[in-house]
């Protein structure tokens, strides 16, 4: 068995295909094929594009993060809303017919709003010709905004925040109470509200920067137990909403042989609890609390001391701006 010589194979192959001639219609068929393909290209690209878009949409629907899986907080209303304090500071003279009342000090709420009270905000300078915050605040119902993805808070202008400043912009934010809901007219974001389980009457409320982060916390007396007053705290979240802080340790007052009190010191809360030993002498245990995002947490070990209320200042009072 011998291999075929290349030249011989070449000759055989050439001879074998010699009868094959090109069809005269070959060129026209090719041209027709080119035109057909050109016509099909656009619809095919369109269909392909639509299919791709549909696929992308489907993938997006599958992997889209559900809003229910995220923390849902009531968001603040649009930034265009003005607050009474802004009006007060920039327009000392109320235009005629604007609805403001002229007088001194904080005004009383409108009669049409049930149990609407204005908190004593220390930095609001009352004076003749100035619009009272309470009159304007009646036009701000308890806002429960729906924009969940609000931007983060701007950095505070001072640390700690000045008294009455919740949003850290250096301006006092007026507060009003309706039933158990406290409405704060934030000068940056507009009104926001927080509803406590209860709000004591008469109202005892303060805005004080407990944790010295530049944003004031809302301290509200919720109820009382005999002569002991209990306070709840609400803190501004990064989304500009107020959220009630759990496990508030703030109680103040003397109730029989037991006394409670608190004061704010350097970003911490010192809570005092004491029991009478003899006459006006109390054995007081002081605990330092820190306010973090999840709530109050105790720092270090409690310290004990003996306090004679006859000669020393009573530790069983409410501090942190509470009158």
């Amino acid at each position: 068995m011998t291999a075929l010589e290349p030249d011989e194979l070449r000759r055989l192959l050439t001879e074998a295909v010699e009868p094959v001639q090109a069809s005269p219609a070959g060129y026209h068929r090719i041209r027709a094929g080119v035109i057909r393909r050109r016509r099909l290209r656009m619809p095919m690209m369109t269909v392909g594009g639509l299919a791709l878009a549909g696929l992308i949409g489907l993938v997006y629907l599958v992997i889209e993060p559900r809003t229910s899986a995220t923390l849902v907080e009531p968001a603040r209303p649009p930034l265009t809303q003005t607050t009474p304090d802004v009006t007060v500071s920039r327009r000392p003279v109320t235009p005629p017919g604007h609805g403001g009342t002229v007088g001194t000090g904080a005004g009383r709420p409108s009669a049409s709003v049930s149990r609407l009270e204005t908190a004593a905000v220390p930095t609001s300078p009352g004076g003749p010709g100035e619009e009272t915050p309470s009159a304007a605040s009646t036009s701000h119902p308890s806002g429960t905004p729906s924009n969940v993805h609000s931007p983060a808070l701007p950095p505070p202008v001072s640390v700690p925040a000045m008294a009455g400043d919740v949003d850290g912009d250096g301006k006092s934010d007026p507060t009003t109470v309706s039933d158990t809901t406290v409405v704060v007219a934030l000068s940056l974001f507009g009104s926001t509200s927080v509803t406590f389980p209860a709000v004591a009457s008469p109202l005892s409320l303060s805005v004080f920067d407990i944790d010295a982060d530049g944003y004031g916390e809302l301290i509200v007396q919720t109820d009382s137990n005999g002569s002991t007053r209990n306070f709840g705290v609400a803190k501004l979240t990064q989304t500009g909403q107020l959220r009630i802080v759990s496990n508030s340790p703030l109680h103040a007052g003397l109730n029989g042989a037991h006394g409670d009190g608190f004061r704010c010191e350097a970003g911490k809360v010192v809570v005092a609890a004491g029991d009478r030993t003899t006459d006006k002498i109390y054995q007081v245990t002081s605990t330092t609390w820190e306010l973090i995002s999840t709530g109050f947490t105790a720092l270090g070990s409690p310290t004990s001391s003996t306090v004679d209320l006859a000669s020393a200042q009573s530790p069983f009072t409410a501090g942190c701006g509470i009158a």
Partner: protein
Amino acid sequence: MPARSDAARSQVARDADAALTALYAEHYRSLVRLAALLLDDVGLCEEVVQDAYIRVHTAWGRLEDRDKALAYLRQTVVNLARSTLRRRLVALKHAPKPMPDAASAEEGAYTLVERAAVVQALRELPRRQREAVVLRYYADLSEAAAAAVMKCSVGSVKAYTSRGLTALGSKLEGLR
């Protein structure tokens, strides 16, 4: 900007049309003959070559070296011949048995090709050997060029060619 893009596209289309005409006039017949040697049904060879021309025309704008259009065309013919053979094998596998009195092949040029002993012998070779032999000794490609078309190494082309020549020599021994 879009007008310039349209103009450039039109220029490419005109180039492709001119190149298609030139390639057809010069190489169409030889490519049909090449396909006739690669396929086991010479009736399909024109279809394969025409499809290859259409594909080259469509891809004309993407060709990096247009001087190698013939090489690209030849490679397309080989690839399409492979695909056609593969499809035919699948079809034959599932086709019903032909009737004993099935009509014979029609007369004409293709019938003559079918009857050539070397073509019959070629069809009995494995596909890669057949391609190597046809590309080397009918298309007169170098080993490197054949390797490029077959997408294998030069050494493989040498091996396929050698085995193909030996097998063809054995099959065609009686004719020499």
